[in-house]
């Protein structure tokens, strides 16, 4: 390649020969070329991610460095954008559950819960959801919180080089995913919580298995604590790293364990309780260290608190239906175990196919067309493992959502990375990002 040609291709003499387009090396957005490698005073711009094992997902961070020290951190997101919010607008209300459960893939049940609570609030049927369904929702979401925190231990540990923590975390998480599979048939993306209740009742030995898992988890989370809490490497890497005070947290909208690590005991399960969670006795763990180590301690304590809630909820689990009585909202499926797995019950099929024409029409209409929802807007927040997960749902009175907007805590927390990482070493960026626990599926939606 000649020198002149090289210059033209790189756009250095683009003005003299405008017919030759400058060659571009783009990283998706086209801004790669505009970033100077070296800015004044020996500062350097480094691109970290999006494909990097330590950025906690498909997250790209443009770091301005002075030696090892981070001067600024510009997070770039959107690599997992799937348009789920747009997709929910063209499908009936019930099908929205199947979409939103795929957003924050580590806490799918929280997404389902918040969406369904929003639909129920729009319908005005929040009080009519059966108590058994509400209590089961609490049990399932609290188990989900434990599994999500376990993945945090696993990935956070792996990013610091502790493969034992990774193995431990994923092993513990698997026990909970087994329960979810046992209940809903799926390890993730369950679509088990539906507007009006649950898709089906839990199997008869659900309680027994959950109690076994709780006992097992208490031991094993203790193991993780023994492994990490006093571990000199873990303490060195985490203590005093990623400090963000309460004022910054609030200004940047940060909630969840990160906010609680600054001493603000804000938990939506206490502040605005949902699904009858206020009847159970649990504490909101708080530290005032405001660093990554404090967030680790909080998450470990939250696991114990969640297990406590699940145990109490199992004790208090009432009988009865798990779907709302109103046949104009309730999903008509009446599931039973057949020779080839779970399916519609034989009695139900024979009734709609052989006995009642109206029942068949009703079944057909509510499955294809769904129910209509009164026009209006609601905002329903729940306390997800990462913080306030809010669903702002708008209805225009039709059988599809007019607009579903998700306030995902991970998205908001990524916005707080610049103040969090200013002045850190490059290696500590990884700790700081891990301690925030962003899930990129929820960030990009």
């Amino acid at each position, binding site marked *: 390649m000649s020198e002149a040609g090289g210059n033209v291709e790189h756009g250095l003499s683009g003005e003299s020969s405008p017919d030759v387009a400058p060659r571009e090396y783009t990283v998706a957005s086209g801004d790669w070329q505009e970033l100077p490698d070296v800015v004044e005073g020996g500062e350097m711009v480094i691109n970290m991610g999006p494909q990097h094992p330590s950025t906690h997902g498909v997250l790209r961070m443009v770091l301005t460095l002075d030696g090892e020290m981070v001067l600024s951190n510009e997070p770039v997101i959107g690599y997992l954008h799937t348009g789920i919010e747009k997709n929910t*607008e063209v499908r009936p209300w019930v099908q929205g559950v199947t979409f939103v459960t795929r957003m924050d893939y580590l806490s799918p049940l929280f997404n389902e819960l918040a969406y369904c609570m929003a639909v129920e609030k729009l319908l005005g049927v929040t009080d009519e959801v059966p108590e058994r369904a509400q209590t089961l929702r609490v049990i399932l979401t609290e188990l989900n919180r434990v599994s999500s925190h376990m993945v945090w231990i696993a990935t956070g540990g792996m990013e610091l080089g502790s493969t034992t923590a990774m193995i431990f975390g994923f092993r513990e998480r698997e026990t909970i995913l087994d329960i979810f599979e046992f209940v809903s048939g799926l390890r993730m993306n369950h679509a088990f919580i539906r507007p009006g209740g649950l898709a089906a009742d839990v199997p008869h030995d659900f309680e027994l298995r959950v109690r076994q898992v709780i006992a097992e988890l208490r031991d094993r989370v203790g193991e993780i604590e023994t492994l990490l809490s006093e571990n000199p490497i873990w303490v060195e890497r985490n203590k005093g790293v990623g400090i963000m005070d309460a004022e910054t947290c*609030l200004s940047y909208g940060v909630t969840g364990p990160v906010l609680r690590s600054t001493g603000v005991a804000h938990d939506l399960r206490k*502040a605005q309780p949902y699904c009858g969670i206020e009847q159970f006795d649990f504490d909101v763990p708080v530290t005032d260290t405001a660093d990554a180590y404090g967030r680790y301690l909080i998450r470990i304590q939250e696991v114990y608190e969640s297990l406590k809630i699940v145990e109490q909820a199992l004790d208090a689990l009432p009988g009865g239906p798990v779907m709302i009585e109103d046949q104009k909202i309730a999903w008509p499926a009446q599931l039973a175990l057949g020779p080839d797995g779970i399916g519609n019950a034989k009695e139900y099929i024979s009734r709609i196919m052989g006995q009642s024409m109206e029942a068949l029409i009703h079944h057909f209409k509510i499955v294809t067309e769904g129910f209509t929802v009164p026009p209006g*807007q609601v905002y329903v*927040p729940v306390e997800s493992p990462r913080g*306030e997960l809010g669903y702002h749902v708008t209805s225009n009175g039709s059988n599809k959502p007019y*607009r579903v907007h998700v306030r995902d805590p991970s998205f908001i927390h990524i916005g707080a990375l610049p103040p969090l990482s200013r002045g850190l070493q490059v290696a500590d960026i990884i700790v700081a990002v891990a301690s925030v626990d962003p899930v990129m599926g929820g960030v990009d939606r």
Partner: protein
Amino acid sequence: MSDSSSDSGSRRDVSDSSGGDELDVTDLDITEEEPPGEEETWHRRGGPGTANPNMAGGEAFRLRDQRRPAVQLSEELAALRDHIVAAFGDLEVEAFRGELTLIAEPDRVHDLVAFCRDDPDVRCELLSDLSCVHWPGMERVEKAVETTGWPTYEVQDEGRIEIDYMLTSITHNHRFRVRTSVGDEGGTIRSVVDLYRSANFMEREAYDMFGVVFEGHPNLERILMPEEWVGHPQRKDYPLGGVEVQYKGAVIPPPDQRSY
């Protein structure tokens, strides 16, 4: 002996007297009279004669809402509403399902949000959420009144984008919404990044998805879509896309073109 025989005798008397034809008829009358007011559901009313298939749904809400009383604002929220309205002058106020919404003109939103942040009785530390809803021109649902079933449509020449600021106070444990509307072609509004840093990403998302320009935003770029992207995907005039699929000989249209 005598007691028990007299007891059984009296019981028999009662059952005998109620076993007659007349009482059967009254029983039937009761069962037929009482439920229709309460139990009648919309599929029974909205029969095959309804022109708009969705009208049956509207009937449903009227009936449902007769049974389900509207959720009122809590006392705290009502007091808060009075406080803000007293301090801020004429604000349109909306209450739906126990949620409070304050509606202001776009040029007053910044002041209103600043007031809600700084006033000791409101003290919203968190801007929880900022989201938009696009109502294209010529068709817009007018106010959703909780007791009516079907929305009334107001024909409108210009499309609007509704911007909702969800404000949360941890101190007072309340949350409410500030709502405003801008035009959907080149609508601008003053940014609230100087009040809440969390608005940075939220406003970038709103700009990316709806094309609303936030004046004074430090870095108003696309955030979820690539920078060179054309169009704003969450707007109603932006198609979802998709192709039709075949299943066992039947052709299923893409999701945004289905009739159901």
